[in-house]
């Protein structure tokens, strides 16, 4: 029962804040609601016994990515864009197509729902072999060692890319 309440609470927060993210005129408000969504999703992770990922979600997403967003929003003027037209003209077409998309996905999930019930007994995953963090850590450093290293290259590329794009321009470039 608690599970149900938690799911619906977090789920409702996530969806409603998500809708607000894409409907607010002021970008700062959108960013705030994005934060709410991210927290709610972290809550969802907790209900699914994924404590480590929930932590990562809060630290990296909220603490890192969202802050970056807010930085950039502060860096560039927002006043003008608040008063501009916010939506594209063809939003009806977009909405209809998106509706078809969710119907299709839901239909596909619904047809396959037999395999989607939670296991009858829900043993706390953590109990099996130490804590959740330990399990994740073991997987990352053994089976998934290679992608883990590759992810470091990915981050390196991102750093180099961001630096290249925003470092001071040479006189020749101006």
């Amino acid at each position, binding site marked *: 029962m608690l599970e149900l309440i938690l799911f619906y609470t977090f789920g409702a927060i996530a969806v409603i804040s998500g809708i607000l993210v894409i409907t607010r005129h002021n970008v700062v408000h959108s960013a705030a609601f994005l934060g709410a969504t991210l927290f709610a999703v972290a809550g969802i992770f907790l209900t699914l016994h994924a404590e480590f990922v929930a932590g990562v979600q809060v630290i990296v997403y909220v603490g890192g990515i969202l802050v970056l967003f807010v930085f950039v929003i502060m860096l560039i003027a927002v006043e003008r864009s608040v008063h501009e037209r916010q939506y*594209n003209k*063809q939003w009806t*077409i*977009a909405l209809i*197509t*998106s509706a*078809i*998309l969710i119907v*299709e*996905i839901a*239909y*596909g999930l619904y047809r396959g729902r037999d395999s989607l019930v939670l296991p009858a007994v829900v043993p706390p995953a953590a109990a099996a072999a130490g804590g959740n963090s330990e399990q994740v850590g073991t997987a990352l450093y053994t089976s998934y060692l290679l992608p883990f290293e590759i992810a470091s290259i990915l981050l390196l590329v991102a750093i180099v890319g961001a630096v290249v794009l925003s470092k001071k321009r040479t006189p020749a470039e101006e």
Partner: protein
Amino acid sequence: MLWLIPILPLLGAALNGVFGKRLSKTLITSIAVGSVALSFLVAVREFLTMLSLPESQLPILTDYFTWIQAGRFQAQFGFMLDHLSGLMILIVTGVGFLIHVYSAGYMAREEGFYRYFAYLNLFVFFMLTLVLADNYLLMFVGWEGVGLCSYLLIGFWFTRKSAADAGKKAFIVNRVGDFGFILAIMLIYWTFERIDFQGVFSRLGEASDFAVEPLGSVGVLTAIGLLLFLGAAGKSAQFPLYVWLPDAMEGPTPVSALIHAATMVTAGVYMVARSAAIYNHAPGALLVVAVVGAFTAIFAASIGLVQTDIKRVLAYSTVSQLGYMFLACGAGAYAAAMFHLMTHAFFKALLFLAAGSVIHGMGGIQDIRKMGGLRRVMPWTHKTFLVGTLAIAGIPPLAGFFSKDAALWAAWNDANYGKLLWLVGVIAASFTSFYMFRLLILTFYGSPCYTEQDVHHVHESPNSILIPLIVLAACSIVAGFAGVPPVLGGDNHIQQFLTPAAHEAKSESLGTTAVELTLMAISTGAALAGAGLAYLFYVVRPALPERLSVQAHSMYSIMLNKYYVDEIYDSVVVWPVVRMSGEFLWKFVDAFMIDGAVNGIGRLVRGSGAGLRHMQSGYVRTYAGWILLGGVLVIAWFLK
């Protein structure tokens, strides 16, 4: 040694293309002419070697390397020399050599001299590859190559917009034909799992009743035959794909002579003759070839009746003569087709070169109504042109008589509608004779229609132009004796020579000697009638055609005219012909419908491109929308 034949011109093209800008004209000429001359000598030597071999050792196959090897699929880079390709290499290098010599004089003052010779040599290389190839794929290499060179040479004077347009048109129309050829090659591989001539022909029996899936009940061999013929029709300018050839006259005249009269346009005929074994198993395709050939022969000839540009008359005449060749092929007489191909190469090259000499002497004027009386100023050109006219008109005993007669005789003996095809051919022959004599008379006889203002100094051409003319004239006179039919006491060498290579289908129901002689007389009569009519119109009553064309526009004047008998004759016989060919065939069918279709396809593609590019609005949202739309469709398809 066979490989030397095409390699020499390629070498010439490479030398002139890369270094030509820095070389002197003499050196460029000697490289270009020399390479083709050497190639000709090698070709003669190879030809003689081949003749000395017994028939069982033919064809001579030389595989140089495996070009493509993929699983069971194999394409060799190999040449094949037999009687058929042997004859072709002699024509290509021989006539090619003469035209190179001619070009040296004709193009002497042109800018881009080296470029011209590089293209021309490259053309000879590709043409020889086409002819010598021992499989369809390599033949296609040559096929595309000659097309490309032709395209470059038509547009050689690219500063003229019409020249560039003509190049483009030639290109687009040939795409349609090439499309057929590619599909044919694919179908051949699909059916026989090989593409070399020997291999395909040896397995023909196995495939005769194999139906092609998407085509329903059409036999696969018929489909292959029709697709190959689509390719041939594009390259050899058959109805309705002939439209590019008259426009191709925008190119330099020697190019018209070499590519658009003697060699490249006959590639289609060669290809059909080469595939004779396939066609003999596909009577349906053969009938289409014959009918299209005959129709093109008379259609193009009737358009030729009213043309006023000296080169365009010859161009329509080429289309018409190619029609004869296909008529002969369609009747199963591949040897006759090749015979006509050979004589046509001589006399048509001769006519074009002589026309070039005239244009050269007239300082660029091509309208025959502005010529006249050139006989006195240009005696040698006149004499050679006369020989060419007599030859093409089919006046015995010149070359055209024997070869055209062989084609017509084959048509007569064809089981399907043979008599009708023959009749069409004979009428076309009288048309041919008429327009050729009209051309001859308007150009060389009568009094000059040009003034000194138009043309400063009408003069005979230099020797480098005249010598090729004389050599070709000699050939046009004697070449026919290679194929004197038995009924006239000859033994038809060429027929026997080509029969093994061309897989001749012997017709059982050959007519009698008397019939053959009668037919011969009739066709000669038709030729003479055409010539006579031209004489009547343009020498005896020069004003007649003028009046005719005026009256063609108003029925009134016919009524009011005093020459009542003449007029009735004119209005019943001549007027419909003039009207038909001038107004309907040329202006409507040719210029409007077929041209329109060609341009229409181009416009359709461009139009849809212009429309579809608006998918690309430049907005990210639209792009995301397209992606989502495609995504939704794909998901729906997967969940079906």
